[in-house]
């Protein structure tokens, strides 16, 4: 009985440590990344990047290339046409 208790305890501790040092460590890394991604700071960072990009766009004389402008124009016209139908 006594040896059984000790052996069980030993096996439980070993399994726990093995799990924590392998799967647990990976899970922790994943959690950290997720927490970082969801953080208010990251959201603010993305917002700032968008603002910066918009400012750049406003400052440029031609933001779109002629080819892109033509393509977007065609696409909007098509949408308009479909919506009016």
């Amino acid at each position: 009985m006594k040896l059984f208790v000790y052996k069980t305890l030993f096996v439980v501790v070993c399994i726990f440590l093995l799990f924590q040092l392998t799967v647990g460590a990976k899970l922790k890394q994943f959690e950290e990344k997720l927490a970082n991604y969801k953080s208010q700071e990251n959201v603010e960072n993305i917002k700032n990047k968008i603002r910066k990009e918009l400012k750049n766009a406003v400052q440029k004389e031609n933001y779109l290339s002629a080819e892109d402008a033509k393509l977007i124009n065609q696409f909007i016209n098509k949408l308009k046409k479909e919506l009016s139908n």
Partner: protein
Amino acid sequence: MDIKNTNISKIITFLLFTIFFLIGVATFKDYGISIDEEFQRSNGFYWLNYVLSFTPFQELNNAVSLKIAQIEGFTLPFPADDPYYGVTFDLPAAFLEVIFKIDDPKNYFYFKHFLNFLLFFIASIFFYKILLNRFENRYVALIGTLFFVLSPRIYGNSFFNMKDIISLSLLTIALYYCFKLLDKISYKNLLIFSIFAALSTSQRMYGMCLPISFLIFYSLSVLSNKKNLNDLPGIVFFCISFFVFLTIFWPFLWSNPVENFLLTFEHMTHHYFYEKIKLLFNGTYISANSLPYNYILTWVLISTPILYTILFLIGYIQIFKRFFLKFIHIKNKSYYYDLWRGVNEKKDLFILFNITCIVSYLIFFSISMANGWRHTFFINIFIIYISTYAFYCININFKSILKRKLLFGSIIFYLIFVIYKMVVYHPFQNLYFNSFFNQASHKYFEVDYWGLSGRKFLEDILVIEKKIDPIKIGVASYLPLERSVKLLDKNERKKIEIVGQEYENAHYLYSNLISEVDKRYNDKYKIPSNFSKIGEFVIEGITVYEIYKKVN
């Protein structure tokens, strides 16, 4: 000869404790104010008011209510919104503040600093008694106690850290009575142990580690020898008295003991407030609720004198090896206990078990933590115990008296070096980094996270700036600097106006480099271009704070 030796060692011990006490008494006013002190004062009064509401002392209750009404602060949380903190220290301190009619902020903070130090001093005496109980050698016990007292971060915190140092002190006293119980179970010691274990648990829940470990070790004793079952009534008595005292000492539990206890446990493991907070660790900003595995180990390594760490590693390996060899040789029937031979081995294993389980729990269960390792300062008890054990073993292994004298000499030489460092750091021992890691630590780790330097900065500003009145000070750090103003003289307080992050209104800016947001992405604490740096406070290559002045 032995009696003469004992008398000399007793005199040395008494002298060193007296010097330690006198130094504390002479210097407790040198320390600044930490950001949590105002909240803890408020917490003490809030719960004192709650306790008094059950008594007929109306006049006293009115005085306490008046104090509560006077406590205000823009960033100060209300204790009812954050009721999880123990009141072991805060409530009696608030009571004494009312009884002694201490009304000036400077005086009541000094008074609490003194009380804080006094408890740490008492704990150091108990630590000496623990070591004497285990090693039965006054010199070894004294060296261990010197390690304990000359742990710069702990010593610095012993004047103003009313959470973690109180917890450490109470746990030390509880451990002494726990050791007495490991020697021999008696109802008197069970009762005293339950009182101190309850006090320590109500201060910080980590205090539970001792009663839980004690019960586990009792179970192991029973597993080895059924005769130990005779002590079962005493163990039941201990469990009941522990829970009774825990409830008595912790007014938050009075309304709903089990639910509130579980709420506190949840709060301790995952602190919702820390979700908004980032910490500078190893050069990057990390979330306080999602710490890397090496967080505690790194902090202990960089902020503990290197000799203690080396001795700790030697001691830990030694005790673990002994335990492991016993473990793999357990037999079904044995004359001895399975995991220890004598009671001293049992005590060593008890300490090893505690530190291993606590650190593993903190690491693997992602427990919320901030501000270095201050939440777990109590593990310093176990660290120093194991360091002392290593010192004891090395001393025993040296057969010649010359070698032993050399060992003592070199340890004392190193302790003098630590004392020198503590004098250099004074009164900022809480910012200590050991010699191997202190180069530009402020770039990689948080230094003055508790804003102790605020007071020195304000005193500096009052010397620098004589013309402007009031001097408007902006704070480019995560710190309520207005709380440090309370440690200035009455007249000086009027000359200072803290404007927070309204930098456009400030004449000067203070930055202790602490930020709760990632400075790479957030400009909250960015120094505006119309301010230029006029000074900084540096200790041993570590920048503690910077002063900026408006130039146009």
